[in-house]
């Protein structure tokens, strides 16, 4: 039987892992290759690097990080952040990434996703979607979400469900769905959002944004209907290990790879 995937995510800036700590900004949290190895040894099912190096900084450092990781870690590696062209994708794949995450560039020019998937295959194109709730009913239940860019600051007017369907039609192999309402809050995934997108698509959906507890992971898979769950801080600050997370999910009747 197919296992649900647990995907630790590392934010990488100029070759170092960074973590946002509330009220303190970004702190250095170590060597990404070392962190990737630890997650691999612990049994992570995949890894994601999100390159948050600003465009004026040295962007080639991520290629070195990816290359060194791919020499030592033999699970799928997705790299996202700042990818704007097929040339960017080729460089990352050549360095050893297995998939790339396209976010803002898809919003500005959706055809880019078509070009990327037809050149490299859908299997390596993950479209990252940042969505925010824009309409609730009188009981406060969410009715509609929109795509936002710039870390949730800029609305685009694009309906999240329709956008996800369009990205699937354009050849996305997978959707990485982040709730901008929940990201960083530790209140759990936006389950109605996750469910709405997962039900509307035939490609896999990775839930992201808001994990605070192991129960949140189970909820994202059960109630959210996600195929995989992505989390950063609960693993990175060793609040929980990957084996703990898997043992918990298994105790909740979820099939995981042990």
């Amino acid at each position, binding site marked *: *039987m*197919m*296992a*649900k*995937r647990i995907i630790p995510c590392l934010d990488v800036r100029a070759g170092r892992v960074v973590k946002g700590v509330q009220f303190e900004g970004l702190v250095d949290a170590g060597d990404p290759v070392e962190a990737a190895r630890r997650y*691999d040894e612990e049994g992570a*099912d995949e890894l994601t690097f999100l390159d948050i190096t600003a465009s004026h900084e040295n962007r080639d450092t991520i290629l070195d990080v990816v290359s060194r990781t*791919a*020499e*030592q870690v*033999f*699970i*799928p590696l997705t790299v996202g952040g700042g990818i704007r062209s097929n040339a960017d994708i080729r460089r990352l*794949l*050549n*360095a*050893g990434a*297995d998939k790339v995450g396209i976010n803002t560039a898809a919003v500005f020019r959706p055809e880019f996703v078509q070009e990327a998937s037809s050149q*490299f*295959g*859908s*299997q*390596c194109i993950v479209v990252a979607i940042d969505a925010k709730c824009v309409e609730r009913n009188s009981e406060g239940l969410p009715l509609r979400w929109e795509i936002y860019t710039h870390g949730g600051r800029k609305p685009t007017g694009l309906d999240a469900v329709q956008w996800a369907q369009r990205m699937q039609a354009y050849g996305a*192999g*997978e959707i990485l769905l982040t709730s901008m309402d929940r990201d960083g809050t530790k209140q759990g995934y936006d389950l109605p959002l996750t469910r709405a997108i997962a*039900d509307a*698509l*035939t*490609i*896999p959906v990775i839930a992201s944004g808001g994990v605070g507890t192991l129960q949140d992971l189970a909820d994202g898979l059960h109630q959210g*209907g996600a*195929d*995989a769950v992505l989390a950063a801080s609960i693993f990175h600050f060793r609040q929980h290990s990957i084996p703990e997370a898997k043992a918990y999910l298994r105790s909740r009747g979820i*099939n995981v*790879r042990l």
Partner: protein
Amino acid sequence: MIIVIDYGSGNLRSVAKALESVGARVRISQQAEEIKQASHLVLPGVGAFADCHRNLTASGLLPALWQHVEAGKPFLGICVGMQLLFSEGHEFGIHPGLNLFAGPVIRFATDMADPEDGTRHLKVPHMGWNQVQQTQSHPLWRDIPDGAHFYFVHSYHGCPQDPQVVAGRADYGIPFTAAIARDNLFATQFHPEKSQRHGLRLLHHFTEWRP
């Protein structure tokens, strides 16, 4: 020397790095003369069946590949590199394959019920870790537990006419062929180079395989 055939279908480096990590001497090559010297040959492949077949044909490397296979030397196909060994692929039309294994490569249906939630459909591509049941004993399965998880990314799967060649089976809505084997040929629909310790073990056995 193990040669990974470079015919313009990505993912070569990860295969080569995984083989290196289990101690093999590996070269990625697009030279027919070099391929003819290989002790072991690996045919990787990602993307569409027809593109891969066209690229492989255009590469001019097929005669060297056939020579290796016919000499009885170890050969490993991975993902689309396995699919290409079948007689035909049904992705974007019907296209001929290398016909080393009789049977078509067909798409998963998108209306297969999810066994864990009957109200939903299984996602296609089949992407993630699935258990592989070993349907025959084989040197490449040695010390790998039956039912071990391997990493898959694919929408199409090969259907061999001869059940004897099935070496591994997995379930995704339907039982499908996850590995095939005959004589000096072994091929996997999953990616051993991305399947952590069990995948590395399989690759290690391949490097030592003397069929």
